[in-house]
């Protein structure tokens, strides 16, 4: 099993918000995450969700979980959250 230090925060970018009125971004993100990590509780994995202007979430993932997510049809890209600088 992947232990704690193998995880890092990744951003899962899913593009524009689907126009469907019945689309529920947060439950979609939760179900994707549960599928990938194989656990029902995503509490200590989910860092942030992006749901107002575009679609996606940030989560603590292992490299193998990242690969699975990146290959999903509804995911544009999965990339590590980094630190940028004030200029």
């Amino acid at each position, binding site marked *: 099993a992947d232990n704690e230090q193998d995880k890092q*925060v990744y*951003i899962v*970018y*899913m*593009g*524009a*918000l*689907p*126009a469907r009125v019945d689309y529920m971004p947060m439950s979609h993100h939760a179900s994707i995450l549960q599928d990938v990590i194989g656990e029902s509780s995503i509490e200590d994995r989910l*860092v*942030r969700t*992006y*749901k*107002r*202007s*575009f*679609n*996606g979430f*940030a989560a603590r993932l292992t490299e193998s979980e990242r690969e699975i997510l990146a290959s999903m*049809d*509804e*995911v*544009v*890209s999965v*990339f590590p*959250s*980094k*630190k*940028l*600088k*004030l*200029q």
Partner: protein
Amino acid sequence: TTSSWSFMGLKEGKRARRNNLIESDTIIGVIDSGVYPESESFSGKGFGPPPKKWKGVCEGGKNFTCNNKLIGARYYTQYPDSARDLMGHGSHTASTAAGNAVKHVSFYGLGNGTARGGVPAARIAVYKVCNPGASGCTTDGILAAFDDAIADKVDLISISIGGDNGSPFEADPIAIGAFHAMGKGILTVNSAGNSGPEPSSVASVAPWIFTVAASNTNRAFVTKIVLGNGKTIGRSVNTFDLNGTKYPIVHGKSATSTCSDDAARLCSPGCLDSKLVKGKIVLCDSVQNPEVAKDMGAVASIVKSQYAEVAMIFSFPVSVLSEKKYNTLLSYVNSTKNPKAAVLRSETIFNQRAPIVASYSSRGPNTIIPDILKPDITAPGSEIIAAYSPDVPPSLSDTRHVKYSVETGTSMSCPHVAGVAAYLKTFHPRWSPSMIQSAIMTTAWPMNASTSPFNQMAEFAYGAGHVDPIAAIHPGLVYEASKSDHIAFLCGLNYTGKKLRLISGDGSICTKEQTKSLPRNLNYPSMTAQVSASKPFKLTFYRTVTNVRKGKAATYKAKVVGSKLKVKVVPEVLFMKSVHEKKSFTVTVSGTGPEADNLVSAHLIWSDGVHSVRSPIVVYAAN
């Protein structure tokens, strides 16, 4: 900002034309390190309630109160839970973009004037994503800030944050956030970065982001050094007055009993012996460790810097000299028995040659999209006085607390352009982000490569030139690029299938023609192409301009300035009958490619006798 706006022609108070009603309805989102809400620059006095369109909230956390100027606050950082500025940076940039006009501002009497934003009547929404130290600015937080700012209905986003180099769009949170902002009619203005003068150091590379380089203004802070044998001038913002008293000088190299010459001459930590420096002026071959001399009891320090063109604040009397002047000083010290000098309190001078692009300002070419010129535009970034947080020392190991401070960087030039973009939008509320960007680029003051040794990168240093707020109001023609134009641009970059469908949100698919389109044919206000070094080339740019001049018809004639390129414009005359009319043309450029790592440029100017619509044409050969 106590002098930068007047420098670029945006006069104070009623002397500048303003559309106050719309300006007061304008909201600038600032994604930065938060603000100091008690600053006069953010006072809500005299403001009515937030604009009706505002969908944001004031969730600045404990001990953070909004008002009718500072209408929104969110934070994406941890401990402390607050949008309060713990770095001074966010207060500085927010007040530069849209701060109230606050009179009699100075830094201990230096740089006195009215601190003001580009749109003092506009509102500010704060999105705090940065904290001091290791926390930094996380990209998952930055993306969340964009998610909120767009939905909160800000009109414009200013973000003075970046990485050390460009990233592919789908892994670049600022590019992702700015793309969705552009889709909602929101222009994102981003600092180019401070990794100059290295080539290809610009980190903000997407065409839907307005990327800003930094330059100086005509005002400079100088710190004179009076030697036994005459005067010399250094740079710093020195507010400590030693009353002209001369003190003995010692070079770091001669003030150590523990380190090698090389380490000691740099005044490296742990190298200076307090017995040898106490009560003296210490010479250091580097600007990196000025506090070391202070901690050892020096009364002042004179340091060498490769980029001595910018004055910084220090916590004790320091003057920064260019290599040449420093070496002159060293030879005086080495040839004089008891060398002495006085470091004077700084003064401001107003005859500095400007604008000159700053050496630190990141340069092109664009590593991700070679045929999109970055940076786009230049604005004042050096020695800018604006709001600060009194909770933060103005320099390293500084015990002072100030409400206004002097900062330098593309972080400072970015909000200047954000302020100008907002100012422009008050006259043209329905203009799209690309129209605002085009108007500012095609009316920029021309800059040239000869004015500074670091400028040999020309348009890769300063883009289209220096922002001119007044001329930008009436650009005559604009280059528009809609969201669908950018989708077609992405097709040309092989963003096809799933990625494109998801990013566009409307199931877009690329036509065969779009997949074959070249990035240089995005309808961008500048034209750039990478060619093979020293080989013949011939290439064509396709462009369309929109007439934005109201009233009578206009005939625009093409003129190409800059002889080294062979440029043919077809047609050479555009007749515009009505406003919003569009006309297309081609620009065919031919010649022999420049040597590797070099560029050759010209400018295409469409002129109707009243307006001058100027676009850089840059051809370069990478290494």
